[in-house]
Each structure stands twice: as C-alpha cells, then as structure tokens.
C-alpha cells in the first residue's frame, strides 16, 4: 500500500505525530499492532515529574524543569526534540482534546500532585477533569473508596500510605468500601466491566447513595478507582459527584486502563472521522533501505507481508509490549533495522531486583541523530526518512522520571515536522 507518511504506533507520540501531520495538510496513515499502548499506562500527560532518577522532590514547574534538563544534558531526548517542540506539541494536544470533546486541566507551568492507587503522590502535568480534585496541593481531607470484590484498588493500602507522606492531621485520610449491585464475590470482573456498569444511570445512583451513607461529614473529597464510565467521562463524573455530595476524583488502576481506553478511543475516532486511514492488527517490521532512504516497511498481514510504501516514516512505538523492541535472552534488537540495542551477558542485569527502583531495561531504545533519525554506533542515520518518537528512544527512563507524556508530545511533534521535510 502506498502512503504519504506512515506513522507506526498507537500511543500519545503516534497520535500527536499523526495530528501534527494532518493539521499541516499531509495525508498520514496510522499503523499499529494490538491494543493501543495507552491502555497500559496512566494516560495522564506527565511532562517531568522528577528531574532525574535519584531525585526525591517532585518537579513543581515542568517547563522550567525541562529547560534545566536540556541545559544539563544536551544528549537527552528532550534536548534533541527541543523545548519549542514540547510547547507547540502541548498546545496542539490541548486544542485537539478540546475539539474531541474532552475536558482536561493543567499547563506546562505547574504540575499537579495526584495520589496513585497505592497512595503515593505522583506529579502530572495535564489530567482529565475527573482526576483533578485529587490534587494533593489542596488540603481537604480524602476518603478512598474501594468496591467489594474489586481487587485492583485497595483503599486501606492507599490510605495508610498516603497518610504517612501527606497526612493533614488526624482523620485526614481514610478508607471505606461499598458493595456494588450485581457484582458479587463469585463474579470475575475488571475495571472495564465496572466502567461499563457505571455508564448506567440507575447503577450510578445506587452506588452514590451507598457511598453517601458512609461519609457523614462535609468537606471531604472522595477518591475512587477510575471506572466512572468507558466513554462519556466528564458527564458521568460530574453527575456522580453531585449524587455523592462531595468532590470526586478518579485514580488510575492496573491495566487495562479505563482512562487510556477513553482517551485513545475518542482521539482515534476523531482523527479517523477526519479522514486518516488506520491499519491495526498488523505488526510492522523490516525496513527496506536503499541509498540511505527507507523504501518500504512490511506489515505482518494475514497470508503475506504487506508492504507500506511511504515517503517518510515515524516510528512511534513505545517498548517491547507494542513491538518497538524485541528482547531475546541476552540481546535487545530493533525489528526494523536489526540493530543490537542492548546486550547483557547476564540477563538479570536488565532488571533491578526491587520492583519499585528504576529498571535498567526502561532506558533501552533506539539511539537517534539530532533529527530523531535512528542511528548506528557512529551516530550516522540508518535511513534519512525515518524518525523515532516516544518511548522507543534510548537514553531516558519515562517511568522513573514521570516524563512519558511530555516526551511523547515533544518527539512526536518534532518527528512529524522532520518527516514532512524529508
């Protein structure tokens, strides 16, 4: 199949790149394997939460933090993409979210500090309205509400952890649990099933009244797992908060992420309706390069390899989960150019024993040129018309520094601009 510019991936970097190309009047095709990588992440936009992996204090002003990071580390992917790409990409995303009917908050000027499902404070830059009332820079006491039978959110754990790091005195953080109509202990269910049920008005009303009975004092805010509807987030969230009688905030849970699903499904539909062709279910690999340019990449379609013949390519995959990297026992290779991206004589060097410490595998990725082209050991581009964006770029840990979203935006935007010029 022929295309103007092929964007490979389905996370934020791919979406921002596609939108950038489309806004510029180009004709991108979006290709990805499996479910969007957004389903496996928080789906907030985290620009910079910690200045490096050893920092203990969260960054308060992400834009200033990134500027400092660029000054200190000229090789960092943020420095390659540039601060302007972050600014322009963020503006583009905020406008797009609005156009697609989302209601989000935040700006590059300040981070919000939001409680996670285990009660740790996490800095985020742009978040949906439904999460914002959880901001820990505010003082109102918090009630975490879990649901019987739903094990992906344990309110007691969140409350006990948060009261240690944030507590505003006696009783400022506590936990409750309510049972849900139709969800008894024998039923296996996930956040997705709950979110579907929360789309039902009667269900929501019943749950709200059960919660109301548990909170007698005014002035509290209520943290619930992010299951308030699969699609119409802001409507459901605000009506539910009114019914509960307290401000309500959603807390992202383990995958599949309802927040990621909401975000991806609507942005995908929005961009598809405006005429962007999408091919999913087909893992892309194998770049065919001649005279320094990528002529084709191949999709593993049913029956045979399907060539995609584009003028330029944006590889905006995230990691091993969506096929950006292939990890063998010792070696991690990229599936497009078959470069060895990391080699570990002892495979356990790739990981830290503690799950909560920065993981060495998180920084493995494609080395890039100053135009985001994938490069060889000597820093030369492997193909002049291929550009990498998002988590697959080497040399940073998007999880440890809470910067996945911002880097996706900055590199997605910059890669799209480069692809147009290639």
């Amino acid at each position: 199949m022929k295309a103007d510019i092929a964007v490979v991936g389905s996370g934020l970097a791919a979406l921002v790149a596609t939108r950038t190309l489309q806004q510029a009047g180009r004709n991108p095709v979006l290709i990805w394997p499996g479910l969007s990588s957004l389903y496996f992440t928080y789906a907030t936009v985290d620009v910079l939460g910690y200045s490096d992996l050893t920092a203990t204090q969260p960054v308060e002003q992400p834009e200033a933090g990134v500027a400092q990071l660029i000054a200190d580390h000229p090789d960092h992917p943020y420095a390659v993409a540039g601060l302007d790409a972050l600014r322009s990409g963020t503006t583009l995303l905020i406008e797009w979210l609005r156009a697609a009917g989302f209601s989000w908050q935040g700006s590059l000027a300040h981070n919000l500090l939001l409680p996670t499902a285990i009660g740790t404070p996490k800095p985020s830059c742009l978040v949906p309205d439904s999460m914002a009332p959880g901001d820990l820079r505010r003082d109102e006491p918090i009630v975490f509400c879990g649901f019987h039978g739903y094990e992906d959110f344990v309110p007691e754990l969140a409350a006990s952890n948060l009261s240690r790091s944030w507590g505003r005195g006696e009783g400022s953080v506590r936990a409750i649990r309510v049972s849900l109509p139709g969800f008894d202990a024998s039923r296996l269910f996930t956040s997705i099933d709950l979110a579907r049920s929360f789309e039902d008005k009667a269900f929501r009303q019943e749950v709200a009244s059960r919660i109301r009975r548990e909170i007698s004092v005014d002035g509290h805010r209520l943290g619930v797992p992010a299951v308030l509807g699969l699609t119409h987030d802001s409507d459901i969230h605000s009506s539910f908060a009114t019914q509960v009688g307290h401000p309500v905030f959603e807390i992202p849970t383990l995958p599949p992420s309802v927040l990621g699903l909401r975000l991806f499904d609507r942005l995908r539909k929005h961009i598809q309706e405006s005429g962007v062709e999408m091919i999913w279910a087909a893992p892309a690999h194998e770049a065919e390069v001649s005279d320094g340019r990528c002529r084709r990449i191949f999709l593993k379609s049913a029956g045979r390899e399907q060539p995609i013949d584009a003028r330029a390519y944006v590889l905006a995959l995230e990691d091993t989960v969506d096929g950006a990297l292939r990890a063998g026992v010792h070696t991690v290779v990229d599936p497009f150019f078959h470069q060895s991206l990391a080699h570990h004589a002892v495979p356990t060097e790739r990981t830290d024993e503690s799950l909560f410490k920065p993981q060495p595998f998180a920084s493995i990725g494609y080395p890039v040129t100053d135009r985001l082209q994938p490069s060889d050991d000597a820093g030369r581009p492997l193909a002049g018309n291929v550009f990498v964006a998002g988590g697959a770029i080497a040399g940073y840990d998007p999880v440890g520094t809470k910067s996945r979203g911002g880097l996706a935006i900055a590199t997605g935007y910059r890669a799209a601009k480069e692809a147009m010029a290639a």
Partner: protein
Amino acid sequence: MITEEIGTFSDTVEEAAPVEACTKCTACNTVCPVARSTEIFRGPKFLGPESERYRSQPEAAVTAGLDLCSGCKLCEVTCPSQVTIQEYIRRAQNKGAEEKGRTLRDWVLGHTRLLSRFGSMTAPLANFGNRNPLVRLVMERVLGIHHKRPLPRYQWLTFERWFKRNSLSPRGGGSGRGGLATHRTVAYFYGCWVNYNERRLGEQVVAILERNGIDVIVPKQQCCGIPAVVNANMDLARKYGVENVRRLNGLPPGVDIIASSTSCGLMLKHDYSHLLDIPGAEQVGARVYDICEYLWMLHEAGELNLDFQPVTTRLLYHAPCHLKSHGIGYPAMRLLRLIPGVQLEEVDEGCCGISGTFGVKVEKYDLSMKIGSRLFAAVKAAGSDAVLADCETCRMQVEHGAGAHSAHPIDILARAYGHG
C-alpha cells in the same frame, strides 16, 4: 551459574507466540463483544491462554463456556503479543466435541455447503419453508435454529453453473474483454454464499475484473471450512481445506486468487496454514487477496479503470471483524471514495453480533442481537441508502437488526461501471 544455564538457550527471538507470550494484560477481554454483552462469559483471556496452561492431551477437555465464543477473532487482533487466543479456544472446543459428540444442529451448520446445495436444489420449497412460521417453529424445536432469525434465500441457478454458461472469459488464457490489455489472470474463490445465495455478487465480481482486462477463471472448489471450524468440526474443515489447497496449488504460476467473502478469504490466507496445519497452505495463502484489496492494488499500480459513472448515494460502511484480522485496513472505503457522488462514512460500532452461524442458534440469538445493538442504533440514527459490509452474515444481521438495506461494496463499484 545463571549465565551458563541461560547461555544454553538460543538468543533468537521467538517468532510464533506461544501461550507464555500472554502477559495477562486483559486487552482481549476489553474488546471481546461477547464479554461486553453477557457476564456469564469469562472472556478470551481465561478461556484461551489461561486455560491452555492447564490443558493436556490425555485429559478430557473442559468445554464449559467455550461455545459462547463467537469466533470473531477481535481478541487476536487486539493482543499486543500476538497470542493465538482463538486457536486455543477452537482446538479445545473441537477436542471436547470429539470426546462427547456434537449436536445435530452443530453438525448441520458445519456442513453449510451440503445444506446450501440441498436448499439450492429445492430452492422454491426451501425458501417457502424458511419463511413459514410453522416450519420455523419445527426447525427451532428439532434443530435449535431460532425462529426469528431470517435465513438466506437460496437460488436455483448456482454461480458455478452461471459462470460455465455465461462468462465470456476464455478461461485461463488469452486476454480479457476489457479495454485495458494486461497480463493478469485471477482465480475466483466465490464461496458457498455466492454460489447458492447471492450469484449476482459473483456476476459483479467477474464483470468488474473483466472490465479491468483481467481474465477470470473459476477453479473447482469446496466450502472454505469456516462453518465447520466454528461448529467444532475441525476434521471436516481440514478435509475441505486439503481439497482446496490441492486444487489452488494446481493453478498456473502468476495466477492470483481472490475472494469476495471476508471469512473465506481469511481461511485461505491464514487459518489453513495456522489453525488447520494443512501442508502447502502457506503457498496458497500468499496468493490470496480480498477483492477490494486486489482492486486497490491495481489502482496503486495505475491499472484500475477509473471510468466511473457517478453514483449519487449516501452509504455507511461496517468493517467486519474478520476483515480486521486480514490486517489490510479498509480497502473498500479507499476504493469507493474514488467514485464521484459517493458519500461514505464508517459506522464504527464494533461487532454486528451474528458471527456466521453463531447468531442463528436458538440459545445465542438474543445475545447476538444484544452484541449488535450498538451498531443497529448507530445505523438507524445515521440514516443511509445502504450499509456496506464485505461479509455476508454481517449484511444479514444489519438488515435484520437495523432494518437497513445492505450490500457488498462491490455492488457500488459495479454500479459505477454500469453493471448495477
């Protein structure tokens, strides 16, 4: 120690995804149309890879819940690790059926070709019976076929016989009758549907190909086998598949194979070699194209006749689940947008619910309608002259559930060429 032990493993990356490739991310359950519609279905993750870890050949198959899987394959489409979820479910279901036997109904539905042949031979009578409430009540009691499900109309003249009588192609040699002189010859895998129920679609496919200067040959063929696969009769499916592979591999080199049914095409492209392990199937699969995929390829090569008459019409497009498994995007939409006057929008509301013979069954009918309800509502709300779908049972379901006229995308293209 660790180094030495692990060093004995190969460092090559596993290409085929074994059950261990499942990371339990639950992506499949998220998109499963059945899991979305009934809480008694435990979902592809549990019935596929998770149960697979406990299945072993000598033990009897545990089949509880497996029959609720409709076979849409959206789980496989969605899996980021390319786990063959459907294949685990189908194999377990088949093993269960071999151990415990299958119902008469499932045996009959698996033999769609036999059934259709009989229906076609007795066309006026069969069509009368299929629309007679009393007959339908008896069918529901005896066969377990829901009385509300409209059954396809049979035609007495099959496509196969029509082609022998009417096609002006010189069958396998010489040049086509179209305006463009090309060297292309295609073999048309028309499938049971075109042969016994919708000959007109086959006629249009032939007319469009010939219009583009392509010789059409129609090799002798069997049912693709998908009705047998989804009705837990893999031996029968393999028998059909072996026969088709043998005949299609006998085609001269350079002859491409096209299919106008999404699911037949997917069987030929993928399932013969993967699910059914048929020797020689990969060579066949690599030659198979969906009809719209093929025509789009011609367009990109500058070989498609673009001499279209305007077709002023408002259309909706429903992408069949099995088309997503092809991994080719939506070539029908690209193609139809070349025609002046065509207004085409995708109605993106997921599975229609029928899944071949699934929604025909008495105990599945209501579920099938519930799965499709989002699509029906969207189709009704949007309004259109027709809802297009490449898959025949999707078209049946949309007509039944949304009361909308439905057609194969080829129908519009044929009109643009003046073969309406």
